[in-house]
């Protein structure tokens, strides 16, 4: 048993290092996963990058570089992190992280998930809360530069939604500040809980 376990562990290490020849030994990838977690699955305040839309990752790198995305963590970490990133490396990183299968954070309140799903799919038309589904897709998978939200950590999405309401920005022209300004704390908790469980 022990020997099989050891072999599996070695195989695991080999598989993870050979996943992408470019990425395996890349210092650029390690610079990201330092904060974004092992396998880029996210870690505390740094969101999961695995499975994210490559165009979204590139648009956010641009937003950090141009200081358009300006919440406190962005200023503190990301403005500096992308400052010296050339466009080629940015594209390679985006494609690499997008290719990693994402794992859901599963860290929301599961009693709120079904309420969150209703808001995600339908919005609350009476309260002028729009459907998230219309832009982010039926399974919160995102498209083009519209991000995948499914499975992102509760803390991260909650923070983003609150920050838009507080006047922080991300991508110029994004409708998200308007969307978020209509969401109350209960709606944010329900939505965020639901999304954390989406596979």
């Amino acid at each position, binding site marked *: 048993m022990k020997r099989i376990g050891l072999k599996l562990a070695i195989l695991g290490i080999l598989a993870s290092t050979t996943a992408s020849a470019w990425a395996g030994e890349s210092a650029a990838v390690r610079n990201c996963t330092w904060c974004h977690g092992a396998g880029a699955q996210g870690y505390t305040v740094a969101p999961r990058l695995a499975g994210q839309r490559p165009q979204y990752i590139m648009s956010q790198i641009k937003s950090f570089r141009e200081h358009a995305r300006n919440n406190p963590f962005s200023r503190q970490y990301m403005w500096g992190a992308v400052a010296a990133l050339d466009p080629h490396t940015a594209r390679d990183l985006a494609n690499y992280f997008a290719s990693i299968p994402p794992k859901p954070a599963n860290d929301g309140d599961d009693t709120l998930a079904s309420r969150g799903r209703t808001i995600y*799919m*339908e*919005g609350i*038309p*009476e*309260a*002028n*809360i*729009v*459907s998230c*589904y*219309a*832009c*982010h*897709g*039926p399974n919160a998978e*995102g*498209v*083009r530069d*519209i991000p995948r939200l499914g499975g992102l950590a509760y803390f991260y999405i909650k923070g983003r939604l609150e920050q838009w309401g507080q006047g922080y920005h991300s991508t110029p*022209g994004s*409708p998200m500040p*308007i*969307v978020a300004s*209509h969401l109350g704390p209960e709606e944010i908790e329900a939505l965020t809980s639901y999304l954390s469980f989406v596979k």
Partner: protein
Amino acid sequence: MEANALGGGRGSRIVKATGLRLALLTAALTMVSSVSAGAQERMAPARGGLEAKLEYCKTCHGLSGQGYLGYFAMPRLAGQQPEYIEAQLRAFIERRRSNPVMRNVAHVLSPSMITALAMHFKNLNPKPFGGAPRGSIAAGKRIYEEGLPEANVPACSACHGTEGKGQNEIPRLAGQVYEYMVGQLTGWKSERGQGTAVDTSAIMAPTAHNLTRSQVEAVAAYVSYLQ
């Protein structure tokens, strides 16, 4: 103003009384509105209600009503014929037009709100959303203006107008989002004219059916650049 013209004590007393009444009214209104702010938000029209609803529409349909590409393509509403907008909102409610998002959206709109929204969008005139492939614009123009007689496709311009502005219940196509146009024309039968009631969408069913995919793309590209 009036107090000055009248002169003397009586005028200023009127002003004072009016001022007092105004102050009381304002105070009363403030109290009422703060008590029932939550309830009012969930009720229909009023000017603030219209503003909020417009912002809601434009979150998806573009901040100037020019359309938007989310996971789904959201059509341009700017410059659209009000009769068409009203007819489509009714079609969503009555499930003659199937669309999971718009059914919920339309369901809570009062008739007066629908009219007000339609009038607002009619008067917007932003640049087209753009982004369509340009290779087949000339072919699209020909189909738009002459139709495809051998395939039983009438000229689009016959109903939608040479400039694509539409009329009454016939929609404006000028500047319409390319992806939306392609989606509607290729999926006409599964979205429009649902149920048993026959509506104006029936006119388009055979035409949409008779266009090939590349012809649809050509027409969609052509109209998407019309201003």
